[in-house]
């Protein structure tokens, strides 16, 4: 059979294209839920870690899910500074709709926050942050003390920065520098930044050799705790006696 004629060529092309599409699409369709499950797990692990609720050593996935469900979760509307009541906080993924984190048009105004209480008193609050790094979007969580201005813990769990250089923002030794730093100064402005030769409670030392990536983390934290982010919400919360 001569396959070099035009109709036979088109037929072979069509059949191979269909067969390959079927194979690839089924694989993706079957595997996508498993992949998304892993992404959620990774995110929840980061939240639990900064919330202080992640036990050391190997933790089973089921344990992570259980502890995550135990956290008190709300969705904050950054425009009004209040909780949004019509959204399920635990399943809400505010990053899913994000196309370009640097673009003002797509900036989400709703974000999930997580509260850690001890005997009904607020101990810690975990808030998500994200922004543009050197090469990619950086996603992280900041845990604030009960005064809603001191950083208790911070983690950057997803990014596409240069391996070996930019990914040092995940180095626990550097992240420990953030502990005890204050985000807001006396006038209520978000002042925390990442600079060289950091001094005082409003500055974190930048990573030499990874200056762009590490200072970007300071920029994105300051953005999310500033006027376009959680500032309104946190000011409101601080004013109330019962949190």
């Amino acid at each position, binding site marked *: 059979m001569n396959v070099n004629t035009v109709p036979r060529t088109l037929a072979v092309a069509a059949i191979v294209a269909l067969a390959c599409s079927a194979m690839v699409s089924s694989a993706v369709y079957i595997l996508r839920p498993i992949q998304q499950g892993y992404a959620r797990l990774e995110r929840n692990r980061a939240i639990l870690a900064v919330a202080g609720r992640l036990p050391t050593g190997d933790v089973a996935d089921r344990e992570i899910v259980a502890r995550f469900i135990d956290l008190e979760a709300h969705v904050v509307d950054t425009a009004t500074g209040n909780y949004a009541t019509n959204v399920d906080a635990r399943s809400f993924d505010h990053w899913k709709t994000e196309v370009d984190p640097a673009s003002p048009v797509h900036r989400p105004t709703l974000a999930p926050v997580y509260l850690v209480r001890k005997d009904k008193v607020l101990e810690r609050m975990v808030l998500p942050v994200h922004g543009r790094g050197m*090469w990619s979007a950086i996603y992280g969580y900041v845990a604030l003390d009960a005064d809603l201005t001191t950083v208790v813990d911070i983690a950057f769990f997803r990014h596409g920065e240069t391996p070996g250089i930019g990914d040092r923002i995940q180095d626990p030794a550097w992240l420990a520098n953030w502990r005890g730093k204050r985000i807001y100064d006396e006038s209520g402005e978000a002042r925390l930044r990442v600079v060289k030769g950091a001094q005082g409670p409003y500055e974190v030392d930048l990573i030499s050799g*990874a200056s762009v990536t590490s200072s970007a983390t300071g920029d994105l934290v300051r953005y999310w705790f500033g006027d376009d982010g959680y500032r309104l919400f946190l000011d409101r919360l601080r004013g109330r006696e019962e949190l």
Partner: protein
Amino acid sequence: MEQLANIVLRSMFIENLALVYLLGMCTYIAVSKRVETAIGLGIAVMAVQIVTVPLNNLIYQLLLAPGALSWAGYPNMDLSFLRFIIFIGVIAALVQILELALDRFFPRLHQALGIYLPLLTVNCAILGASLLMVQRNLTFTESIAYGFGVGAGWALAIVVFAAIRERLRYSDIPEGLQGLGLAFIVTGLLAFGFAGLSGIEL
């Protein structure tokens, strides 16, 4: 502007595709025996990169990225898994066009490159550049700078290597090390030099 210059310099030196990411090695080792052919191949790679990287960027942003199809009414569609096959299709088409253009306007270069021109389609450096561009979420203008940078960097690497190899012909080399073995070690030394740039953030 500064950001674009930054990207060009980074992708040419600090993140050189041939000597830091080790992409495009097969052609790199095989076509580097004479400086003249190395220059020709380097220019061909540059030409393909500078067109395919921005083109693939457009396609990715308009069709394949998660949420890209919202203009068509499908905001929840994530077709990014198709990028492998779409990118390689674009590259194959472009290399074909380049081959026809070279045959018409630069026949000597076309003959010198021989089989290695169509092999550019499956050159890891060219597909790799598009994939890295996606991983880094570059905008359209940034991807033009990136395409230029990676192409120039790869061309630079292969020309330098060819120059060294031409000199090596005058050396007395142990039999087992002749040719391929020494080529690897020399490339290793070149890569070593580029690795020294790795801590720099501009």
